[in-house]
């Protein structure tokens, strides 16, 4: 870990002003990912701006339009167990509680969850080349041990996956991210926040250096009647997803009126496919239709040496999870 200057701020604009003055400054909230990365010499900020004492950012509240605002500093656990979230957005609760451990969820912030970095073995090992860590050094995962890596949206420069569970649900729910920067405030649709690797895999998302996330807005519809989250992993708990699926439906009778599907563990960002959701709309909730949606989502899936199984695993996970969301499958995993 490098030495750094530590500053506590009590206002958002103090934080963004400090960020704008130092390209190598970073914000700390929960710290559960940043401190890990600093100990590994992957992240080497020379200035740490502690935003935990900014008042109000840890709130979870209902807005006048019925949307719910999750403060960026609200802890993952407080969010998952919050009565409004548990009741109106159970998909989000489930996804959060599928991630990490209770201790980590108690500390990790909502804003920080969006900014988690990949668990790619090669990203974490400074002795191996990695374009995400050192742009231009090469991707060791390609041709390496890539069992946990991407099958969707990867590039020849990076096949890492985004590790969050919470974000898979936020993607499905069409959340909006509110951001403050030295130039003012802006909002970004969830789908536009995280990036695919392309030839800039060192950029995980579209947050600028002088910006910080202040809150996340959830639309009114939380799909509390027909939802499911499925996480498949190498042990029963406390492991990152090989495949995760968030499914949410509006169903009338047996007909799907609105469908949301998001996938985790498969790509550089939570994966949405609007076409697949569209083909389910006004269709019956059935194995056949869910299979067709899965096929469409995975149409362009590409496997590497060790992760071909993820394509079939994802297909089955999508179908099973959609059946669960539609209350058609009685065998929860």
């Amino acid at each position, binding site marked *: 870990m*490098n030495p750094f200057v530590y500053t506590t701020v009590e206002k958002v604009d103090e934080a963004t002003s400090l960020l704008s003055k130092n390209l190598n400054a970073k914000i700390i909230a929960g710290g559960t990912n940043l401190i890990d990365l600093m*100990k590994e010499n992957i992240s080497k900020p020379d200035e740490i701006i502690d935003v935990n004492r900014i008042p109000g950012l840890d709130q979870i509240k209902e807005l006048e339009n019925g949307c719910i605002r999750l403060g960026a500093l609200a802890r993952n656990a407080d969010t998952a167990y919050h009565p409004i979230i548990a009741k109106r957005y159970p998909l989000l609760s489930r996804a959060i509680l599928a991630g990490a451990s209770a201790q980590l969820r108690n500390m990790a912030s909502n804003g920080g969850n969006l900014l988690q970095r990949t668990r790619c*073995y090669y990203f974490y090992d400074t002795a191996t080349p990695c374009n995400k860590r050192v742009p231009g050094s090469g991707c060791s995962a390609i041709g390496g041990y890539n069992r946990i890596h991407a099958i969707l949206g990867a590039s020849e420069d990076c096949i890492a996956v985004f590790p969050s569970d919470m974000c898979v649900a936020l993607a499905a729910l069409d959340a909006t991210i509110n951001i403050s920067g030295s130039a003012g405030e802006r909002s970004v649709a969830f789908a536009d926040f995280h990036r695919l690797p392309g030839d800039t895999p060192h950029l995980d998302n579209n947050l600028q250096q002088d910006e910080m996330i202040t809150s996340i807005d959830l639309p009114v519809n939380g799909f509390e009647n027909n939802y499911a989250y499925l996480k498949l992993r190498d*042990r029963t708990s*406390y492991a990152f997803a*090989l495949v995760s699926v968030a499914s949410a439906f509006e169903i009338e009778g047996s007909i799907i009126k609105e469908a949301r599907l998001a996938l985790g563990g498969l790509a550089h960002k939570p994966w949405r496919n609007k076409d697949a959701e569209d083909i389910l709309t006004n269709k019956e909730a059935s194995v056949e239709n869910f299979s067709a949606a899965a096929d469409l989502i995975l149409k362009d899936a590409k496997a590497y040496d060790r992760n071909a*199984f993820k394509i079939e695993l994802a297909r089955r996970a999508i179908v099973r999870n959609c059946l669960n969301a539609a209350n058609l499958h009685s065998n929860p*995993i």
Partner: protein
Amino acid sequence: MSTENKYFGQPLSRVDGPAKVNGQAKYAAEFYVPDLLYGYIINSTIAKGSIKKIHAEKALALTGVLKMFTHENRNRTAWLDLKYTDMDAPPGVPFKPLHSAQIKYNGQPIALVVAENFELARYAASLIHIDYEVEPHNTNLESNLGEARKPKKGLASLLKSGPPKSKGDVAKAYEKSEIKASGKFVHGMEHHNPMEMFASTVVYEPEGKLTIYDKTQGVVNSQLYVANVFGKAFKKVRVISPYVGGAFGSGLRPQYQLFLSVMAALDLKRSVKVSMNRHQMFSFGYRPRTIQNTRFGSNIEGKLQVLHHEAIAETSRFEDYTEIVVNWTNMMYPSENVNLDYKLVPLDVSTPLDMRAPGGVTGLHPIECTIDDLAYQSKIDPVQFRLINYSDVDSISGKPYSSKELKECFKQGGERFGWDKRDPEPRSMKRNGKLVGWGMAVGIWEALQLPARAEATLGADGKLIVSCATADIGTGTYTIMTQIAADCMGMDIGNVEFCLGDTNMPLAPVQGGSFTSATVGMAVHAACTGLQKKIIEQAKKIEPDIFKRINLDDIEFSSDSLRIKGHSGNFISLKDIVASTGKSDLKSRNTGLPDVLKQRKYARTTHSAVFAEVEVDEDFGIVKVTRIVSAIAAGKIINPKTAKSQILGGMVWGIGKALREESIMDHRFGRIMNANLAEYHIPVHADINDLEVIFVDEEDHIVNDLQIKGIGEIGIVGVAPAIANALFHATGKRIYDLPITLEKVMS
């Protein structure tokens, strides 16, 4: 004299329990030492080659950074390779830290940075850049099977006998067998990963005397190593290790942080602490990657005709680490035609190291899965198949087992599990839409006893302290030795204390191999018996001599006094006896020796029958071990509570071995890629469901007078094959490679 068993066999809570639950138990990195320096280790990032140049200017310019130690400036250490040999060193030349510029494996320690505090040392280490001369390396067992050769022999091979000579005509017998089963079994590399990371705190005292708090399974081994390597007198090196945060074999050899911390302390003449980090816990000893082939044949009645079992394992280029992998086949099952073979492939890796039931865990899985296959093909119940091939004689040595209550394990374990309700047909059992499978396997492990010494001291306060330089790596040594001593002396357990983990105490071997209970137990017994004799001698000097003309057998130790049996009035208190000596205590130091003459006529082993249930979600390949019953025959159980914990731990390890654990190497780099606890998956709470342990009664008057056989390994050996067999029963699919991750099971 009294040997009434008041505590032996009782489920007492651990005597060290309170210290472990309130945070007072101190582990190697936790001893407060004033003015302590911190060392941070730098490891190589290449697998083979040499160090060209180390750029350390930036690091050394930092205020508070004292020195960097490398092969270029290390202290003078022993010249002879032999001096680096520890009590568990395999044949070959031990790895010598910072010895030369040569790199032998990826992760090799190559430098130590010493600073005034931990954070500074860690930062300084991150500033050091190393230029290497890289040479091509080879770390891949599969692509080098042609290099396989017989292991070299050495001192350590004495406890690890090689395979026996072949018997009969194996090829022909296999060809002729009515039922045949075979398989190729590949096991991944595994690391011990005790929760406590390796650490040494070296306290530098004037005149170069060292007191070292070390994480080790044997303080004597660490002392021997430090004294030999650094040319110091034994009395100037004291090693202390009262608590060990798990080891599982990883502490059987001195680890490199011990060398590095001692080197720095001697050079800087300051106290130094060096802890490994979790990555570094993957940079030494491990259970080696092993490839095994079996070919077993039986007749239609289930009688085994032929056993062929060969194993090829990896080792380093500099030491031939071996374990007993294939011998178990013929120890468990008699056959006229037997071929057992064990070979090594040296690679550019660190030397493997004994890991919980070394060899047994590796070998039993192929054996018990191949036997299961024969039973299935013969349409004979797997338990019945094993009864058909049951033997009370070890077919390799031809010696009878000193005791073998395995049939009772089958009976009690099977009943508890409900084995008779099993539908033998694969894929026949379902629950909640998932396939259910029931499988079983047998386990076996050696019951060894080595020599050890102990000292029993009766204080003026009437309290007994027994000491021995052994260890308690979580096994319960403190507790069971206190029980043995209290019973031996007829004392209340509250007046007895057992001390361990200090080289000032009498000599003991390392703790491991399931031999500590018998080894140290017999030493404690010897010391207490010796002390009793001294107490009686002293009592007879006290006037009036109430024991005059009393037969020794009629004198009894009872609680706090010495008395004549049946005469409640005639007694002398232990305190008075000590007081009469005019000294502060009475002590006796004795050796517990195995009765070799008696033992050598017998094969001495523990046995288990393991019954496992799995639920399989075939779509996803997810296997849930819902239930395991382990029935254990292991002589007399000193403490059923701590013993049960040992077996439960073995079962959890078995689940990890079967389904979870593998250190994954990228052979392009020769580097382990999941060297952390997030991606090296040891089981978590949610992985563990119903586990039941049964100890069947077993008498054994051969192994030792206390009838102790040891239980550290028997809990794990049969678990992985029982799970694999249950998985076959559930799915109809045999999966030969471990760990069984979900893609191997997905239909």
